[in-house]
């Protein structure tokens, strides 16, 4: 009796499938990115264009905007599969459920976290963030946005069966995002002030390692419960 496809194969297949689906609805996939840009734009409009003020606020503003746009696209993680019944089917595969979660989180990150890295330098420019800080900003985004996708997966898994679970999802997930926000914005802030930020970046790395090992597990449990 054959063992069936291996874990990596399943992972790859799921990611490829979801990316293809997202590609077909290209406009929808771009929403979180546009949101990111718009939110960042709101701050100079609301606070005034003075460069010194914007520069001081830039790390926090950029990170809060990244957080919010990651959250905005979370619902789509399991939504369409839940709607057409394929989520139930996915849970029946012989491979462990956390692989499915990992695949979904990775796809979410590829579509909404990774693109932020491309947009971030432009937005940092708008907010007059100094160059040394931009490099650190990109590092914090690389380390932090996957954590947002992974923790977000837990929230989505918990609320997938609920009607109008959107706002509840935000309420559940945002407090858990706070350490990432503090460390990410703190690192960029420190870099802008010329200080060394090794500590913050290490902590972000630790958070990422922690999230990668534990979040898929928790989300898998939540998914199984939600689909009972």
């Amino acid at each position, binding site marked *: 009796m054959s063992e069936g496809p291996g874990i990596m194969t399943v992972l790859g297949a799921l990611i490829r499938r979801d990316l293809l689906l997202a590609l077909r609805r290209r406009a929808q996939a771009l929403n979180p990115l546009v949101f990111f840009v718009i939110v960042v734009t709101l701050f100079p409009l609301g606070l005034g264009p003075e460069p010194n003020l914007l520069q001081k606020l830039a790390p926090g503003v950029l990170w809060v905007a990244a957080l919010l746009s990651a959250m905005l696209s979370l619902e789509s993680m399991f939504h369409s599969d839940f709607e057409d019944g394929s989520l139930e089917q996915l849970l029946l595969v012989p491979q462990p459920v956390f692989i499915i979660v990992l695949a979904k989180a990775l796809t979410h990150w590829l579509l909404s976290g990774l693109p932020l890295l491309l947009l971030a330098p432009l937005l940092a420019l708008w907010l007059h963030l100094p160059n040394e800080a931009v490099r650190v900003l990109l590092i914090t985004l690389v380390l932090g946005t996957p954590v947002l996708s992974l923790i977000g997966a*837990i929230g989505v898994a*918990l*609320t997938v069966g*609920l009607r109008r*679970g959107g706002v*509840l999802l935000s*309420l*559940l997930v*945002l*407090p*858990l995002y*706070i*350490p990432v926000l*503090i*460390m990410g914005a*703190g690192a960029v802030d420190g870099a802008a002030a010329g200080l060394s930020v090794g500590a913050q970046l290490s*902590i972000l790395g630790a*958070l990422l390692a*922690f999230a990668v090992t*534990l979040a898929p597990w*928790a989300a898998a*449990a*939540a998914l199984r*419960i*939600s689909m*009972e």
Partner: protein
Amino acid sequence: MWLWIHKFGSPKYFYTVSGRMLPWLAGATTLLIVLGLYLGLIASPADYQQSEAVRIMYIHVPSAWNSLFIYLLMAAAAAIGLIWNIKLADIVAAVSAPIGASFTFITLVTGSLWGKPMWGTWWEWDARLTSELILLFLYLGYIALQSAFEDRRLAARASAVLAIVGAVNVPIIYYSVQWWNTLHQPQSLGIGVSAIHPSMLWPLLIMAISFKLLYVVILLMRTRAEVLERERNNAWVQELAQALAGKNLIRS
């Protein structure tokens, strides 16, 4: 050990045992609170710098300790209910949430009232108050998730996952807020517990213990009510209700 857990998991056994314990617990709690209030409000001295405002510490700090203690207990009960499928544990977790949220709310309000005479502002983003605010969000999220499900069992299991994830995050959140706080340097609230004078330490500890007992009392009361409601079709509940009505202990 398993026999004990299984026995304790029986709602009827829990109800009878807790019924016997409750009057004693309530009595002890009342005594301790009165003692604590006497020591805190009357017998203990005013602070050299803060004067009489320091007396707020005797309810602010015990509330803060309770808010955290209850969250961890809630998560533990939820985990037990999830892993071993014990309904009573689910009830304990669900009932603890509003109590914990209440203590968190008290911590925030008393912290604000303590802060105004100390710092001059009604709110300061110091480490403890900020952490408490985030803890309140965690409680509210848990309560919201519970009420979003129609099926009680599903609600218990889903919110158990949330509670466990939250509990794991509590130290992470606490330490990152601490770090954030030292970076931005607002003043810290209150007196360091290590440097505290015995005449102030005693009321603090007594209030802390009495608050924990008060939580247990309220927890038992609400869990018992919940058990009655869920087991209402069972014979022992019917008989109990009739007996209480007979003794005119409830107006029909």
